[in-house]
């Protein structure tokens, strides 16, 4: 009913409406004040998180050079596809990229940084162009460059240079506090691992402005990744590659170096592996194939595997006998082809016998009977103590990770560990480098170095120098005399003469005719599992030894065989390509 009262109520209600509207308006003002003034800083920071992306740039690593400045390891720029999260669903991005590139992507994507997912690594240049052209359809997919470790000499240096890989979650526990992230690269073997601190560079980052579709609008700040140092090794790339080739299909190792400085020129172990495959990441299948390979390609046979030294150990027995005065140059023993001891026959390798032998002849012809006799007079403890002086059974101070030492048996050890007494037969076995005795090829190499320098033991090393980022030499790794073994000069002369005769008259006949005077010794390690292992090592020129070499070939037959032939080739190569200063005939 329309009356005055209703009309007044209408008037009144409009008034109320006004107050309601006023109240709402005040609420809006307060909210606006709260958002933009009170909480402004917080929201500004949130906004920045929207449009500013910080892209971490993988740290660069320093290069690794050989002694002639040739590259052994370097970082090459590669391209990868990165999806900035939030711009597209991962599955959607995968489908679109697969369509653009016309090939499938992997099933698992790695997150290299919060909100950044790697879709594909190592793109070809054509693929980069394809992606750039399709940029409009691929919001948030950016092409990013990253460093890829490259090893141009591949397998030959797989053990000594090593390789890099991503920090695993297990390694992260220890490396995390050092500033590593799980997507960083870290050295996994060889000098890459040993000199990680030198080679590891500094991470960089880039701040970019992106729009809502993840398209890069501009770079706000660029802080490129860097490396601090490169390293120069004592290794000779050409020589090492040649030596690796020389081993052919054999398993084995070759170590060559300069005895008077400790520099190592060649350190190969075969079989190796291609470190470039490991850097790119192997499939699980390939990985297990490598790790479970019975040839153990990951083992650096030079420093991580132990073998019986065989006759090459006789050098040490001879040194001990001469230096202890048990024998002299004139001392002779008669070799009928065997030694009868306690009603047992211990045979010489030459069953027809060597006749009357002095120490020089014994070394040259590697006569077992001579050393049986000598060892019986010397005793196992003396042999062990001389061996120790030359570094056998002692972990060497060498710049490679995972270096092992051999094993020197003593009566004491046998009593405690085996609860057996030491038989004279054990001594006889020890004298010819068989039995319980185990050495790494590197230990024998160092024994030969010690003989070459007549007792001056230089610290073996692979690092020749350190360069700064501009390539200037900032540290020169000089020779360090580790210790000196005091042995009578006459002992050295006899020993080295014997080793000369190894080549000219004895078991090292494979190396006759080399145009340099050579001292060497063969070794044959009995192998219950198959063909004997073959040792051949020595140094040249005899007068002023510049090079010590050691060749070890698994299942290479006796020492005068495979190893000596390889040594012949490598010495000739060295004389031709590098040469020696003096002593050339």
């Amino acid at each position, binding site marked *: 009913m329309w009356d005055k009262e209703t009309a007044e109520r209408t008037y009144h209600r409009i008034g109320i409406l006004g107050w309601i509207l006023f109240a709402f308006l005040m609420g809006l003002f307060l*909210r*606006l004040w709260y*958002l933009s003034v009170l909480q402004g800083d917080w*929201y500004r920071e949130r906004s920045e998180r929207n449009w500013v992306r910080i892209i971490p740039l993988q740290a660069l690593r320093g290069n690794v050079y050989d002694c002639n400045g040739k590259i052994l390891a370097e970082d090459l720029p590669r391209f990868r596809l990165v999806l900035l999260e939030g711009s597209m669903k991962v599955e959607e991005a995968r489908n679109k990229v697969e369509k653009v590139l016309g090939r499938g992507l992997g099933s698992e994507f790695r997150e290299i940084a919060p909100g950044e997912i790697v879709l594909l690594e190592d793109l070809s240049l054509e693929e980069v162009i394809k992606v750039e052209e399709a940029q409009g359809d691929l919001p948030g997919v950016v092409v990013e460059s990253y460093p890829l470790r490259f090893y141009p000499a591949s397998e030959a240096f797989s053990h000594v240079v090593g390789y890099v890989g991503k920090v695993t979650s297990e390694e992260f526990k220890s490396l995390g506090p050092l500033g590593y992230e799980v997507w960083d690269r870290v050295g996994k073997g060889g000098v890459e691992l040993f000199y990680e601190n030198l080679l590891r560079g500094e991470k960089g980052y880039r701040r970019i402005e992106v729009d809502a579709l993840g398209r890069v609008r501009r770079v706000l700040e660029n802080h490129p990744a860097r490396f601090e140092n490169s390293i120069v090794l004592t290794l000779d790339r050409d020589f090492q590659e040649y030596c690796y080739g020389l081993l052919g299909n054999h398993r084995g190792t070759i170590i060559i170096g300069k005895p008077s400085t400790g520099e190592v020129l060649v350190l190969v172990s075969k079989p190796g592996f291609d470190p470039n495959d490991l850097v790119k990441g192997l499939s699980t299948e390939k990985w297990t194939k490598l790790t479970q390979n019975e040839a153990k390609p990951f083992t650096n046979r030079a420093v991580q595997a132990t073998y019986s030294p065989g006759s090459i150990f006789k050098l040490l027995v001879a040194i001990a006998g001469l230096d202890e005065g048990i024998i002299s140059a004139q001392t002779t023993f008669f070799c009928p082809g065997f030694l009868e001891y306690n009603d047992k026959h211990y045979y010489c390798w030459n069953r027809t016998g060597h006749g009357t032998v002095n120490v020089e002849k014994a070394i040259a012809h590697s006569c077992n009977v001579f050393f049986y006799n000598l060892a019986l007079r010397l005793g196992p403890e003396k042999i062990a103590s001389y061996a120790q002086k030359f570094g056998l059974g002692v972990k060497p101070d060498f710049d490679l990770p995972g270096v092992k030492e051999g094993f020197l048996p003593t009566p004491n050890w046998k009593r405690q560990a085996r609860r057996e007494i030491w038989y004279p037969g054990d001594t006889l076995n020890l004298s010819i480098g068989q039995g319980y005795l185990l050495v790494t090829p590197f230990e024998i190499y160092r024994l030969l170095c010690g003989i070459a320098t007549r007792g001056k033991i230089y610290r073996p090393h692979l690092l020749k120098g350190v360069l700064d980022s501009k390539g200037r030499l900032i540290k020169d790794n000089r020779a360090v005399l580790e210790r000196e073994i005091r042995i009578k000069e006459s002992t050295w002369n006899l020993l080295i003469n014997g080793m000369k005769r190894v080549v000219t008259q004895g078991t090292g006949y494979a190396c006759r005719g080399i145009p340099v005077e050579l001292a060497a010794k063969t070794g044959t390690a009995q192998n219950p599992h198959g063909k004997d292992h073959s040792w051949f090592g020595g140094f040249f020129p005899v007068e002023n030894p510049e090079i010590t070499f050691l060749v070890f070939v698994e299942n290479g037959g006796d020492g005068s065989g495979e190893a000596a032939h390889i040594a012949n080739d490598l010495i000739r190569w060295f004389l031709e390509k590098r040469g020696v200063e003096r002593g050339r005939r």
Partner: protein
Amino acid sequence: MGEDKVLVAVVVALCLVGILAVYSVDPMRGEGWGVRSFFGRQIIWNIAGWSLFLFFAFLDYRFLARGGWLFYLLMCLSLGGVLLFGTGDETGARRWLFSQSVQPAEFAKLFLVLFLGFYMNANKEEFDSYALLLKSGVLSLVPVALVFVEPDLGTSLVLLITWLGTLFVCGFGGRKLGVVFGGLAVLGSSGWLFLKEYQKKRIMAFLNPWKDPLGSGYNVLQSQIAIGAGGLTGQGWLSGKQSQLRFLPARHTDFIFASFCEQTGFLGGALILLLLGVLVWLSVRIARNALDLEGKIFASLIGVVFGFQFFVNTGMNMGIMPVTGIPLPFVSYGGSALLVNLAMVGLLYNIANSRRKEVGRRRFG
């Protein structure tokens, strides 16, 4: 200065702010002033809108009110036409007639105001009766339902609020209003079952936007971030990162308030609030001072329509209202809405002006 002149000044200011705001986020800005640009079209709509303003401002509104049923018929037919022949937009909703040129739901706001003003005035003897409540309710719910099924939740809410405003202004008793609100609450909560999935998500996102910041909560968060990042004085003209780099969705329509605030800060946002506040306050004042019941209902309903859209839009921009596609009057880009809004301002001017003439005639006549 008379309230009619203040009214025009305020609305002119709002329209200018709107053109500037649309210009600042126009994705086609680089291509010049052509008709492809949003701000260019906004200017053309303004010209058309102000012509419509003149038409409504100087036509006798009492004469206009006589066409009540005609407007009602026009409204229902056009809304029905949308459902039958309409074209959809990117969200899949059918809201357009004549290939995306006319949005009948926007015109329904004006038509419903005109119809309810006429209808209530014609039935003023029945005020405060359940019969009138029911009749007006049924008549109003027809367009509400037609718009709701398009679907356009926001506009159907505006139409519903128009009817509720009518009941309130026409002095219906507290108990009756209680019954209506109670009924709507029951209907609303059971209506949850009939809401589209995206509408449910929007409401959930309003309650907790951080639950899904990249999905359903994205709009709500990005607009708040834009407003907050603007600070007191803004990031500068044309340089808000949220809007320029397009993190903010619907920059020129639903979230134009946020993009304007990002550039001009609290001060710019407060200017819009102030202008719209004054406009709503003027509507209420004009309603109170109107000489006849029709004028009172017209003006107060226009105030309700402006006020509701204003509050819901800025509220959702600031995260205190759920996201419903309601544009900001005069500022958001959009032709139909601008035409309708300026027509309603014309009506307000008309009511204010006729009172002044009447008062003047009495004083001097």
